[in-house]
């Protein structure tokens, strides 16, 4: 390992410490996972081991955030660039900038919180579950750090296997079917994505994202073709209407930690791809496809909200709410303005925090009542479980985009972007999108409030069978999310200051 480090120092031109940390972000979960493979009486200690590893990863992520040069958030930092598969021109090329840094920290945090949550639950087959989660973490962080198209794809794929197992092994009753649907659907999407990436490579002869984004050497038609292929691949993961149907099933059947990571990080890999690959490398393709992207995005917003309004199952409801929220993220991208892309990146992080918290809470309810059916859980939850129900109210209010909480800025800025889209895009069309998106925001409020009313309000007939309210360990997993939702709600510059320079660099805006 020391040889690798030494090689890094000489190979990369940027500050060595940062590069070492970036590699550590990948090595730690990898080594942790490998260590779990060693046969031995680890048994119940597996979760603690995972906790320690993910804690270290989180510490490294925090170190990265503190070493990060915020005055140059638009520049790639800590780059590592080593040959990997020379005959294909694939390089082990990593780096971090203002777009990927928040996502890396979010991933490390959510994985840590998931393991904190597991520490209070003694899951069956703990060793395998922790193994899957660590591999998942590796893939997720790798996706956000890669600067080589094929490396990006490999990490993108690495995530699928552990998630498949998490759903298929630790899931609910219909887990098999849901897991198949998840893997088939996303694999199909990945195949299309790969075709698109290879097409880019065939056209340009390089896989280096930084160079491709700086020069964009492809012609317009080729860009459109590549954008459609890559876009479809990413849209499956995001998910974009009408490619979303794997999501409700996967979420409903996945265990709590699976749902949290699925909604909190996996969906972001799709949207991150738009910000890192599709839009910067293929700007003309993006401009041509943007109206379509915007149209599907707003359809997703309204459709997701309507589907939630008539939903009877809480987990499905929150899954569909993700379709709506990702609609706002995609709308932000579709505007191709700095505001819009900022909005998308903000919405990404906010959704990860808020929906992560929501799935934690739903998981806690399902664990206590053995169901996530709204009518069986309600009414009067505020009386029976005041802490859980209050937090659920908080998370729902955050999710419906209340100003002062994290969800607001992404939505509001996306609508603002649509009010004045990039030059060359049809303004009237985007104004229509803005109006539809605004109405979607009202519907979003409607279904969350109706859900809260059915679940938390209403007569509860006094304390019934004693169910414990939020435990200490659950609160330990939830409170960091609550705090961050508040922080990003009242201090949007914390994120916008990071993403704005990166987005301006990405769009070539001075």
């Amino acid at each position: 390992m020391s040889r690798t480090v030494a090689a890094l120092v000489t190979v990369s031109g940027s500050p060595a410490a940062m590069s070492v940390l970036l590699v550590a972000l990948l090595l730690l979960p990898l080594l942790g996972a490998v260590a779990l493979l060693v046969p031995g009486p680890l048994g119940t200690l597996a979760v603690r081991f995972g906790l320690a590893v993910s804690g270290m990863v989180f510490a490294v992520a925090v170190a990265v955030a503190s070493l990060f040069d915020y005055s140059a958030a638009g520049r790639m930092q800590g780059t590592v660039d080593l040959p990997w598969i020379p005959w294909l021109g694939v390089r082990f090329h990593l780096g971090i900038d203002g777009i990927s840094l928040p996502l890396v920290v979010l991933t490390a945090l959510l994985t840590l919180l998931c393991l904190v949550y597991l520490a209070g639950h003694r899951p069956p087959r703990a060793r395998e579950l922790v193994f899957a989660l660590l591999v998942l973490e590796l893939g997720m962080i790798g996706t956000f750090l890669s600067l080589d198209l094929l490396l990006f794809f490999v990490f993108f794929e690495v995530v699928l296997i552990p998630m498949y197992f998490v759903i298929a092994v630790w899931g609910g009753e219909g887990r098999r079917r849901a897991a198949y649907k998840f893997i088939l659907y996303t694999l199909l999407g990945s195949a299309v994505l790969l075709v698109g990436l290879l097409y880019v490579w065939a056209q340009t002869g390089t896989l280096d994202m930084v160079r491709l984004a700086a020069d964009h050497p492809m012609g317009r038609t080729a860009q459109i073709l590549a954008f459609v292929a890559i876009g479809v691949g990413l849209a499956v993961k995001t998910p974009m209407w009408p490619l979303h149907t794997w999501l409700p099933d996967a979420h409903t059947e996945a265990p709590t930690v699976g749902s949290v990571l699925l909604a909190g990080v996996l969906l972001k890999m799709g949207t991150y791809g738009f910000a890192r690959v599709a839009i910067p490398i293929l700007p003309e393709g993006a401009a041509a496809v943007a109206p379509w992207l915007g149209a599907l995005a707003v359809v997703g917003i309204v459709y997701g909200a309507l589907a939630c309004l008539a939903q009877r199952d809480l987990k499905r409801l929150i899954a569909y709410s993700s379709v709506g929220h990702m609609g706002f993220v995609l709308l932000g991208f579709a505007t191709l303005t700095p505001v819009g892309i900022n909005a998308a990146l903000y919405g990404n992080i906010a959704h990860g925090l808020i929906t992560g918290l929501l799935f934690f809470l739903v998981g806690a309810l399902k664990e206590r009542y053995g169901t996530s059916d709204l009518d069986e859980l309600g009414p009067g939850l505020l009386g029976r479980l005041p802490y859980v129900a209050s937090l659920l109210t908080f998370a729902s209010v955050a999710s419906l985009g209340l100003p002062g909480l994290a969800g607001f800025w992404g939505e509001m800025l996306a609508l603002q972007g649509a009010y004045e889209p990039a030059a060359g895009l049809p303004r009237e069309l985007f104004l229509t999108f803005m109006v539809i998106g605004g109405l979607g925001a009202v519907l979003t409020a409607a279904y969350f409030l109706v859900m809260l009313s059915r679940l938390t309000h209403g007569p509860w007939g006094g304390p019934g069978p004693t169910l414990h309210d939020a435990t200490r360990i659950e609160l330990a997993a939830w409170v960091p999310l609550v705090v961050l939702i508040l922080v990003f709600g009242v201090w949007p510059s914390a994120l916008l200051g990071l993403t704005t320079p990166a987005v301006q660099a990405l769009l070539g805006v001075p």
Partner: protein
Amino acid sequence: MIVSLVVVLPFAGAVLGLLLSRYPHGRGPAENLAANKRAAWFGVLPTALSTALIGWLAWENTPSTNVLTVIDTGGIAITVGLEAAELSVLTAMLVGVVALAVQVYSVGYMRGESRYPSFSAFISLFTSAMLLVVFAADLLVLYVGWEIMGLCSYLLVGHWWEERANSRAAIKAFLVTRLGDVGFLFGIFVLGFAAGSFRISDVMAADIPEPTLVLATLLLLAGVAGKSAQVPLHTWLPDAMAGPTPISALIHAATMVAAGIFVVARLYVLFPQPTLDVLGVAAAIGMLGAALAAFAQTDLKRVLAYSTISQLAYMAAALAGGARDAAVFHLVTHGAFKALLFLCAGAVIHHVGSNLLGHMGGLRRPMPVTFWTMTVGYAALIGLPPASGFFSKDAILYGLERSSSPIQLLLYGSALLTVGVTGAYATRAWLMTFFGTGKVQALPEPAPGTAHVFDGREAPASMLWPIGVLAIPALLLGFTDTGEFHLAPAVTALVVALLGAAFVYVIWRGAPERDPARLLGVFHGPCEQAFYVDRLYAAVFVRPVLALARGVVRADDHVVDGAVRGTGRATVGLSGLTRHLQNGNAQLYVTGLLAGVLLIAVGAVVLG
């Protein structure tokens, strides 16, 4: 600096109240009592300090701006800043005083209530949000406060959430206002992009073409109509009376509902004539319709709620007619006397154990303090001298009389008629509450939402003090602005109001035990149902949306996902080779990965 403190103090109170009231945790009666005591301090003290600081600002009377930070969003920056000008300080004074009165009053009103800590914390949060709206120097910052007020309204209307009706009312209040707020946000976009800045001072100074202004202000009006319960978005306010009465006094009478009027007054130079005409028509319809509806209500709080809609429409009409200062004057006096009326109504309800006018009567003897203070409130509402409403209403009528608005006749006529109806419904409520024979009898423990059982005594001191203190401005506030007093419209209004009052008195005198609302005859039904607007909206908007939602769920399962499943089945059917993938799981992925690698290899060979 002081402005920031004014806003932050109640916010800090809210945070502390929520986190620390119940620390260390415990849910016994003794712990509840201790928690409530601590929560009361967290509620009252910051509000009191904040109000004192507002007083200081009013005393200094120098406009000040305080920019905390500028948020670079990649587009037009957002200036997080506060600005204290004359209108803002005046409105903030109203907010501070009423909020303080309500906080003190709640200590008595919610005594022994186990959820009092969250209740008082939400009031503090509301106070902070409203002060943010009042002092905001940037339109988007204003919007932030604007929406948080809506959330507090939702949480507090639904305070007694065990009752389904309260929960529904809370949802309705939030959603109807949010619908308007979407328009409001878009209006902010139009203004901000036209001016190149969201700062209010920049927007007001910018040279924006009239068509853009008309569009922008019409969009803003949607939000104004929502918050200030103006036609056609007024339907949530009467239902919001499901909340505890102190909330009705603070949020749904004196402050939040006045925010819409405040915003129009604040941005008045931006409002061109066409927008003002639209506002005027809505106000003219609203003020008379709501006054008639108030006359037919059987629930005391709903009488006051419709009265609020009607009085807010007065202010809107004044704005539409060009009498901005009169509108602001009435906003302040109305805030004082309507908060007073609600707090008195709360004392009455607390005493009787019911909201219904039919259950009241003869209360003038057991509740002398409430009787006299509420009489002051009604006098101000009707516009009897020397109460404050007399002067502010006179200013509005004078303004409307001389208005150059193209709909001047409509505004003035409607306002004068409403003065008469206001005299009638206020007199009816006053007579039915305090005169006639007492019908109050001891009731069993009431359901949540109806306060306490009858105990035959006047309300506790913590409730009477705020009532008494609020009665002073309700009575005397009019004299602060007598320079604008005009005798002729005052006499006209007084005669019309007394006519309405006398009419009701004569009817009531004939049969004191019967409801004078029978005077409406065949119109009684429509008036009581507020002209069936609720049913119309349910049929036109609510039910179709719900039906659509059910359709989407079905379509999602059968069409969108059906296509996916169908494709999957077809693929499996076509390819016997891959059938075994159905039972494997590891193989499945390995195959996928292999396919990927194969594709890479093929790509490398063919294209490289």
